[in-house]
């Protein structure tokens, strides 16, 4: 009946898009919203550092502003931080938190405001909801746990793994993918147990696991429990190889253990910056150490690469959040950790590495690379 209503809506939308593009052209901003306090502060700080390092060294011709806000550990704080960041004009994209529950709360807002979120959150559901505004730059369990399981079976030749995992959502998701990978090789775990994050004494679970006669210990635990289990296993004289989750690649986890305790310990990860491998990687590690006084891990590198990809979009002329989103979705980007490309759902990272310690130092070497793991399926 009223034909002017759709026209007005289209006009209003055009005005919003054009004004967003104009604002972006004037002064693009990339707010960094990450958990700097709370139980994920270690990972969140790595995220912040990676993003800040990239933002402080943008490509030639790109001037970009940013501010950092702490999202803590609750979804409400993350949503408030996002709304505050979007009050100002010119937001090209947002560096979004690693914490999955916060991301789930922020996704509807990203769709409403039409702004891309670049994150390293591993929660599988984030890219399964049909939201075109999310881009995940850290390989999920469908990549890392497949690489984890393949290394155990194909490289170590193990057939009797004992799987110890955390009872958190992170642990259970990883356990599911690991068990399924082992099944695909016709391998059944001889022992499996979920551990609460508060468990300090690992002797009981090690005793039970060893009674099952495993040929490898496969871990999918957070940082502290991983180090506790390795230390207590070695103290009990257990010399079985240990293939752990990504927590074990973190320099802060390795720092808890003596090099001798790390002998025959391997870990999956998206990357391992401290292992070097190329002059560019070594320059990144040196710059990170110089700027933050700490060692970079795979989370820091992934967020660095993610932010550099957004900056590359801006450098290539993406002049609105829509254009940035379309650029991220359509282009390949050669980062330091890997080449990123969207699978159509915003999953950008498809490679994983296995790193192993030699028992003499706390710096692991890359033992195996797995490329395009989920793309091959």
């Amino acid at each position, binding site marked *: 009946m009223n034909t002017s209503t759709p026209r007005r809506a289209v006009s209003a939308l055009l005005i919003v898009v054009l004004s967003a593009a104009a604002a972006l052209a004037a002064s693009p901003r990339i707010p960094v919203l990450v958990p700097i*306090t*709370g*139980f*994920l*502060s*270690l990972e969140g*700080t790595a995220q912040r550092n990676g993003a800040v390092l990239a933002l402080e060294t943008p490509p030639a011709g790109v001037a970009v502003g940013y501010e950092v806000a702490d999202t803590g550990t609750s979804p409400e704080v993350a949503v408030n931080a996002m709304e505050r960041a979007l009050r100002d004009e010119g937001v090209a994209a947002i560096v979004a938190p690693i914490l999955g529950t916060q991301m789930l709360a922020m996704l509807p807002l990203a769709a409403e405001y039409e702004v891309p979120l670049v994150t390293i959150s591993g929660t599988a559901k984030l890219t399964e909801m049909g939201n075109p505004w999310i881009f995940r730059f850290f390989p999920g369990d469908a990549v890392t746990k497949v690489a984890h399981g393949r290394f155990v079976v194909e490289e170590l030749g193990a057939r009797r793994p004992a799987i110890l995992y955390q*009872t958190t959502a992170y642990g259970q998701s990883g356990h599911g993918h690991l068990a399924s990978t082992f099944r695909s090789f016709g391998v059944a775990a001889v022992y499996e*147990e*979920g*551990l*609460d994050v*508060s*468990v*300090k*004494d690992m*002797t*009981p*679970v090690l*005793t*039970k696991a060893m*009674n099952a006669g495993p040929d490898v210990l496969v871990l999918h635990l957070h*940082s*502290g429990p991983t*180090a*506790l289990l390795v*230390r*207590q296993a070695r*103290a*009990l*004289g257990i010399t079985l190889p240990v293939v752990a989750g990504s927590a074990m690649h973190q320099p*802060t*986890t390795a720092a*808890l253990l*003596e090099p001798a305790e790390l002998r025959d310990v391997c870990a999956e990860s998206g990357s391992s910056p401290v292992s070097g491998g190329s002059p560019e990687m070594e320059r990144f590690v040196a710059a990170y150490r110089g700027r933050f006084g700490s060692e970079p891990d795979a989370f820091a590198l992934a967020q660095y690469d993610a932010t550099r990809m957004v900056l590359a979009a801006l450098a290539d002329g993406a002049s609105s959040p829509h254009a940035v989103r379309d650029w991220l979705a359509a282009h390949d980007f050669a980062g330091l950790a890997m080449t990123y490309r969207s699978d159509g759902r915003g999953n950008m990272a498809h490679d994983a590495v296995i790193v192993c310690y030699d028992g003499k130092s706390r710096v692991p070497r890359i033992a195996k690379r797995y490329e395009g793991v989920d793309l091959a399926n």
Partner: protein
Amino acid sequence: MDVLQLAINGLALGAAYALVALGFVLILNATSAVNFAQGDLVAAGGFAAVAIAGLVPAPGIVLLPLVVMLMAAVGLVVCALAYWPLRDRPPVAVFISTIAVGIIIQNGLNGLFGAEPRTVPPVIAGGHLKVLGLVVAHQSLAIVAVAAILVTAVHIFLARTQAGRMMRATAQDRPVAAALGVPVAAMVALTFALAAALAGTAGLLLANQYFVTPTDGTNFIVKAYIAVVIGGWGRVGGALAGALLVALFETIVAAWAGHSVAMALLYGALLVILVVRPQGLFGEPVGRRA
């Protein structure tokens, strides 16, 4: 053999829990209120050791006196902030204020040291003994030895010294103790200092073998609370026995049934004790609970 191995590990863990529970009971008896910051004082002790070890690279046994002194001072601050202004209010006020202090300690540690686990030098040199097929870590032996020495010292202090007698008098009946000239305020402050020093010692002892993070306190206070309920609310010996029972439950039952089931059984046992024998296994000298 497995059971013996587990018992040895459980004994070390139980010895550290015993120090936490002992401090918890001392404050409970002195103030009739639950100090819910006691677990966070354990974490604070661990981080105090981390900080001191950064300045003075030395074995834990050398760091211990410094940690004890620092944590005793922290205990005085907790007393001044969380207890003394509320001493005439119902015990629930102190209960709430100590929760608040615990949260402040957690966030303060997170801000100062970060969230990642940290470790400290071993109490004595690392390594382990092998006895009849059992592996006994030097650190476990050191934890048990230090805890035993401290518990004995606290017992002698309370039983044989004038200050200890005044502390016990304050715990038993504060108005009467005050009427008899006991410096009640000083005794309560001394109790907080002693409890914090014990918690800090536990933190140092545990931080090498089990690491320390800012949020560890919650776990320790729950264990101490369970130990005190099992052993008898306010009974020092009962709390020590309760702490050992909790630790042995965590190791031996967990090895038999798995950790999740063991924890469910532990909390189930706690409920049964609360219903069937609320005074605890060893009786209850204090009739008033927070």
